[in-house]
């Protein structure tokens, strides 16, 4: 068990970071090359102001007409994303690991905050799951893969939460915690989760395609 944990937090973690970052770089480089050749429309009308406005309006709660049409969902959707990023980055236990390994770390939030935010993420996750099941326009689009990715996204949070509170088999939970997080990171560059970076490009594009060319607000 110890050996497994050591492997997952050692070589496997390195591999994960390399695949995660390398994968994103490869995907972006590939798309950049392809776009230079086939998507002249992207470069012909590129405009930073409209691009940034378009991104910003979709990052702030109810910043777009679309979000205002579905205020509850869009609020949950933003809180979910904030939690997804904030908990792993600012958890003190994670920062201690960074500090031990490299002597550098990020600012840490208190454990109480992290604990609360984890519960919020899980609650949002359950909300998103229920929404997928009950809203016909979402259910009709949903594939098994969407449920898998949602489950996979929540697993590190569930396991981390249980392990922190020492509920259940701690060692098993930690192995599952690290493993699921690694699988998730590895998948990001190759799946719809790539929206983590690609969102900024597609949102900017529609921002200047509608805005710089026509003055229309794509939000």
């Amino acid at each position: 068990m110890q050996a497994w944990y050591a492997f997952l937090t050692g070589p496997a973690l390195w591999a994960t970071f390399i695949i995660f970052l390398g994968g994103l770089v490869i995907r972006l480089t590939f798309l950049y090359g392809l776009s230079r050749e086939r998507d002249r429309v992207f470069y012909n009308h590129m405009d930073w102001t409209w691009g940034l406005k378009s991104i910003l309006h979709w990052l702030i709660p109810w910043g777009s007409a679309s979000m205002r049409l579905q205020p509850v969902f869009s609020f949950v959707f933003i809180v979910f994303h904030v939690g997804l990023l904030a908990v792993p980055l600012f958890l003190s236990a994670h920062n201690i690991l960074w500090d031990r390994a490299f002597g550098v770390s990020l600012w840490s939030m208190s454990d109480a905050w992290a604990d609360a935010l984890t519960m919020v993420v899980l609650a949002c996750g359950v909300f998103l799951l229920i929404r997928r099941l009950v809203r016909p326009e979402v259910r009709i689009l949903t594939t098994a893969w969407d449920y898998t990715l949602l489950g996979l996204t929540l697993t590190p949070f569930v396991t981390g939460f249980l392990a922190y509170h020492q509920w259940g088999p701690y060692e098993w939970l930690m192995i599952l915690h690290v493993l699921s997080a690694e699988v998730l990171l590895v998948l990001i560059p190759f799946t719809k989760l790539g929206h983590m970076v690609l969102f900024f490009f597609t949102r900017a594009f529609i921002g200047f395609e509608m805005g710089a060319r026509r003055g229309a607000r794509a939000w």
Partner: protein
Amino acid sequence: MQKNDGDTRPVDVKKIRELLDANNGARIRTWLSLCSRCGLCAESCFFYLAHNRNPKLSPAYKFKATLGELYKRKGHVDREFLHRCADIVWGECTTCKRCSMYCPFGIDVATLIAATRTILYSQGITPEGLARTVVNYRETGNQMGMSSEDFVDTCEWMAEESQDEIKGVTIPIDKHGAKYMYTVNPREPMFYPQDLAMMAKILTVAEEDWTMPSTGWDCTNLPMFAGDRALAGQVVRNMYEKALELGVQAILITECGHAYRSALFEGPYLAGYPDGKPPVPVVHSVQLFYEYIRDGRITIDPAKKIKEPVTYQDPCNVSRNGGLWEEGRKLVRFLAEDFRDMNPNRDHNHCCGGGGGYIPMGPEYKARRMASGRVKAEQIRATGAKIVIAPCHNCFDQVSDLNKEYQLGVKVMSFKEILCELMVVPEKFRPEVSEEDEGES
């Protein structure tokens, strides 16, 4: 329903794959792989709203079931599937581009639908109404198959007719170096020649330096909606090249929505101009009319200003996809005392249901057009307006049909018509009336 009708022609999988590959750029690839199936786009689509939120009418479902599926199966599909796709991409989408603003990732569904249309077209599938126009464009350069002689004759006839009302009206043909080359929708010379007369009167009173070309005068581009990209490029090139040949300063577009989208936004790409810009500036009538009144080149008789409540139909391709919603509104306010806006409006307007080729698709699609137009009909009714101004031929027809179908009790008008009624005709343009005529009237 687009029926299979015993279509047993083989599917040219190689051709489909070629087109799939040609379209597989960074944008389409990213959009298709990124859609997170969140369903936010559904609420933005008037087809979805008009049909009791039928989930199959959400934009994401429409591109997933068509282009998404074609990529997934790598083009290995049967006729039945292609006809189902046709039913979606022509019968359930007008490529109004509203949903791309409501998608968190800004997925441009209209582009995905247009790509699907080109693939279907390559397999000989396109609505009959559009297919007929394609033949006409190919043979005569315009969608209604009108000959150049007939067109020029109609212009001359209309100029002559107008001289009774405005002195000195002419429709100059192929005048080199004019400021504007005025291009129209062929339904004007074919069925509503008074539209030409009205424009000639307005341009005469504004003392404009303009001309109409004897070829390349059709600014519409139905091959763009039929899925014939090559011909769509040719159609727009005819117009650009004529403008360059005549050395005009700009192409002026009649009150037509998709013509503006074609000439200014999609045309350069269809015609293969790498910088995406038309070789000659393109101006829409709404813009020009607004400037005329703003700058005092046309004066409106205050006593004739419309008193009845008026609303403005934002044509998707003039407002959201053309950027002229404010000009349109200011123009309405110049002409009418009681302007009532629809909701939503401007760049967030709903398509009337007649765009994207829907009107020319003909009678077999009419029942569906009326059903999906319910959203627009309700928007109009809620304003309480008695007049709907629609600076687009397709909006004009659709709102007129909706008017009957939903008994809205409105009158649909174009800006031209209203301007002609309301403008002050300066002394020098008033025809001399002989004593005898005066006695008769």
